[in-house]
């Protein structure tokens, strides 16, 4: 096989490798990566066939590429996707006509760009595995390219170049050096950064952001983590975390009232929601990490006090409002007392305000619950009606700017997500004269095996309804969304522990890599500064002295163990480890195999004496043993420069010797 053929096949494999993530992404349409994949497969299977199209055909292909890119949307869908399509088609054509080393090197740049597009578009945790494997592939290919450029044989009798272990070690060290680079790279908040948007409010759309409380998409990004500070199990009612309530619809979205904010009474760093609760002792303490902070803190029902490192105010709906933080995670502690009902202000005029007075919706409301007397009965009827007569769907298809989304949902669409259901219930109850409001927050999550930790994802964002049932019961929660649409609680047990561990890994991936940003960098610096400041205190602590003593003792013990290992008496070993070749290693194995059958192999045995004994024990293997001994002597004492044998040949010899050994054993047993 000629060099060009080898290079073309190598290029094909690299192209296929670069395409691996694309089928799992949405950025490149399948037809484009399929074309590139076909080109890669062609190169792998038929590298010797080099298409040589005329210039006319190439010009026509160029036009066809442009037409194809424009036909699937062009720049109307942003610059990245058409550029990706263009890159894939150009690469597909260019790699096919490679016929020399220079062309191969130029195409490597194109394939590298395809790889960059693939990796940069990936968000799944498995992308990390692919990334590291790609680093190893890059090192492997890079070394081979340069070695072949020197005219060296890469798969000859000296083995395969480069050695895989060298590549792995290089990648590990490169990774270790890359980590600090990754952490200190500038992540500035410049207006040119096209990063994550935190201010999106889309209202009734599948990608609804519940007024900056949570995104109701299928995102598995972790939104917040709730931990029990005392280690006790989390109660199910605490898994519905409330942001705030919305009382009015504006521009297609439910929004909260921003007025009437109340500054919380603070003492000792703790802000009190209900000062009358008295002392904090005896209350359940929950630590919450809000990884995607919006304007509101999430808190379980019955929250008495909150401790957070920023100013916090409470709106009239009990929502805890904080200052604007650009994506920086926030940790806080809440004290929960669910023995007392949630204090709440009585309904105001906005709690009965109708966004639009739609006669058909009014009629529908009347037909469902108009005949019922009490507010509770009406609320129960409307909730049941919505749960049974309407379907849950994340993709409603409504155009929120042209129609009234609630009326559309109730009368036409009859399918939607939780915000449609909650909004519809609120509107229907208000038509019936019952004060109601929509509440946004999170529901459910994954509970740890010990039950003391809850991981809540963006997909757990949920909207439900609070209905005013009079001065006694006050505001009571209703959830009109069908159970299938209510984010549930996942208990982790049995084999699901694996899934939990996987989710924890995903959490790390999400926090430490995917969304690592300026906030994490600042936290890192802050932690480093605190750690440096704490050094004097640490030195004074007895435990630190003990720790250092333990490290010293372990080091000494390890050194002694290493010394023993190096100097231990072994039956036979081949000179220095560094001079080992495959044949001499095989003779070592042969020496070890001799001991159990009665062979005498003292440390001063020569290769030839081992061979003689082996022939005596296993005469059927005599030719292979003699050949092996000769190879080992060449490796150990030869002067011709080719000091190592071909590992594959030695493997074959060893197999022959082993079969001779087995035959001998069978004869003895027989």
């Amino acid at each position, binding site marked *: 096989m000629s060099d060009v053929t080898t290079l073309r096949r190598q290029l094909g494999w690299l192209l296929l490798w670069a395409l691996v993530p694309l089928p799992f992404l949405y950025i490149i349409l399948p037809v484009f990566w399929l074309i590139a994949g076909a080109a890669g497969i062609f190169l792998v299977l038929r590298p010797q066939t080099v298409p040589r199209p005329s210039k006319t055909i190439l010009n026509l292909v160029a036009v066809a590429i442009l037409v194809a890119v424009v036909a699937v949307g062009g720049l109307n869908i942003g610059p990245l996707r058409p550029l990706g399509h263009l890159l894939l088609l150009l690469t597909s054509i260019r790699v096919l006509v490679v016929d020399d080393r220079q062309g191969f*090197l130029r195409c490597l*740049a194109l394939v*590298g760009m395809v790889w*960059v597009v693939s*990796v*940069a*578009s*990936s968000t799944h945790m498995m*992308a990390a595995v692919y*990334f590291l494997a790609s*680093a190893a592939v*890059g*090192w492997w290919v*890079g*070394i081979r*390219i*340069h*070695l072949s*450029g*020197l*005219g*060296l*044989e890469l798969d000859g009798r*000296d083995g395969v*170049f*480069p*050695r895989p272990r*060298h590549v792995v070690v*290089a990648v590990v*060290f*490169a*990774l*270790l*050096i*890359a*980590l600090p*680079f*990754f952490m200190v*790279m*500038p*992540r*500035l908040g410049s207006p*040119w*950064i*096209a*990063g*994550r948007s935190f201010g999106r409010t889309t209202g009734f759309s599948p990608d609804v952001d519940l007024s900056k409380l949570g995104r109701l998409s299928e995102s598995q990004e972790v939104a917040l983590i709730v931990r029990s500070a005392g280690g006790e199990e989390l109660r199910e009612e605490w898994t519905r975390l409330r942001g705030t309530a919305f009382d009015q619809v504006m521009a297609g979205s439910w929004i909260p009232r921003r007025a009437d904010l109340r500054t919380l009474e603070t003492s000792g760093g703790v802000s009190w929601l209900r000062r009358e609760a008295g002392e904090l002792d005896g209350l359940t303490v929950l630590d919450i990490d809000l990884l995607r902070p919006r304007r509101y803190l999430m808190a379980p029902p019955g929250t008495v006090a909150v401790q957070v490192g920023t100013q916090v105010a409470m709106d009239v709906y009990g929502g805890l409002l904080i200052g604007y933080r650009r994506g920086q995670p926030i940790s806080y502690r809440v004290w929960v007392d669910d023995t007392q009902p949630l204090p709440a202000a009585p309904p105001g005029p906005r709690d009965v305000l109708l966004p639009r007075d739609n006669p058909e919706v009014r009629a529908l409301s009347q037909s469902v619950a108009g005949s019922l007397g009490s507010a509770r009965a009406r609320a129960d009827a409307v909730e049941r009606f919505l749960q049974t007569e309407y379907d849950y769907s994340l993709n409603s298809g409504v155009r929120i700017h042209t129609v009234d989304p609630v009326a559309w949902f109730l009368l036409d669409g009859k399918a939607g997500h939780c915000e449609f259901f909650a909004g519809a219930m609120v509107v229907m109850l208000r038509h019936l004269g019952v004060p109601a409001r929509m509440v946004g927050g999170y529901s459910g999550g994954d509970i740890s095996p010990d039950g003391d930790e809850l991981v809540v994802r963006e997909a757990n964002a949920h909207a439900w309804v609070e209905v005013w049932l009079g001065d006694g019961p006050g505001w009571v929660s209703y959830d009109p969304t069908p159970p299938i649409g209510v984010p549930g609680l996942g208990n982790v047990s049995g084999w699901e522990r694996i899934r939990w561990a996987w989710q924890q890994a995903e959490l790390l991936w999400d926090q430490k*890599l*995917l*969304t*690592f*940003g300026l906030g994490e960098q600042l936290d890192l610096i802050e932690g480093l500064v605190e750690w440096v400041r704490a050094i004097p205190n640490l030195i004074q602590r007895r435990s630190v002295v003990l720790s250092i003593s333990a490290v010293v003792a372990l080091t000494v013990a390890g050194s002694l163990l290493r010394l023993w290992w190096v100097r231990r008496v072994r039956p036979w070993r081949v000179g*220095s480890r*560094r*001079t080992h070749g495959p044949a001499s290693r095989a003779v070592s194995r042969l020496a070890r195999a001799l001991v159990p059958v009665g062979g005498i192999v003292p440390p001063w045995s020569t290769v030839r004496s081992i061979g003689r004994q082996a022939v005596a024990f296993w005469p059927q293997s005599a030719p292979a043993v003699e050949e092996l001994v000769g190879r080992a002597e060449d490796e150990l004492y030869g*002067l*011709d*420069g080719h*000091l190592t044998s071909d590992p594959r040949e030695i493997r074959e010899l060893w197999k022959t010797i082993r079969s001779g050994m087995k035959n001998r054993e069978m004869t003895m047993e027989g």
Partner: protein
Amino acid sequence: MSFADAFPGFKLRLTRWGAAYIAGCVILGLAAVNTGNNALMAMLAMALGSYVVSGTWSRQVLASTEVTLRLPTETFAGRAAFAEVVVTNNSRFFPAYGLVLRADDGSALLTEGLVEPGTSRRRTVQLVFNDRGWSRVGPWRLEILLPLGFFMKSKEILTDDRVLVLPRLLETEPKLDVSHGGGSRSLELFSDRGREAEVSQLRDFRDGDDQRQLHWKQTARQQRPIVVDRQHAAEGPVYLVVDPRATDPRDPEVLERFETTVSEVATAAVYRLRRMAPVGLIVGETVVPPVRDAGQAARLLRPLAEVELGGMDGDEPAMVRGHEIVRVVGAAAR
């Protein structure tokens, strides 16, 4: 160890591959900062990490690699000589990939794919010296491009080895114009004189043997050509005399003629020794007593390798009485 000791004559050259890599890193960095995409950040970090590892690796390998040279014992001008080169990687951890040893003219003497840490590779390289006399080997350069080939790093391999290049041997035995006593005779006459000597051995025919040496009976019996080596012990020793004096030793034409003369004398001496005919040498004032064995040829060839053409004020070649003298007329007499 200082940098100069570890890297004598260190050179660093950015390769095209390295330039493309740096350009790629810059573009990647711009894209990463502009988009805030952490995958791009990770790619850039890994690229920089690989850059550091590759540079450290190649530097350590270059510092810890030694090249030792063992020159051949006999080197003739214009003929290939095979020297033994041992490349040793003294590093404990870093394998040496893609080492290239270059001669002072830039040609690659050897390319080593891999030298594992703490091991040596022994290779043979072919050397050709054009001029006789003392010649210094090197300086050679040890280059390393790997592992990822961003920079071509090289250092000089300094050796104290000097090699005495013996005179160029001619393809055929020369027919020298010699002065013998008062007349002129061919040198072949001396070799012909031993034709009738005693048979010393029978052996296989070798290229260059005279067909007249064939032993026909043995050849017919053994079905392969057998020649007769004859003992020339009875033959009296012959001195070859080289007169290194010239009226204009700087004249290139004179120099060339002198070199040709030296080559002819060396060739004649070697051919005589192959026939085991004793031959001595007189070069200027230096007199080498006759030797008989080819293994002693160096005693004749060394003075011939070192002789330099001088002016007419030099000493006249010494004379040895009681022996036949073949006076090779040097450049001065022509």
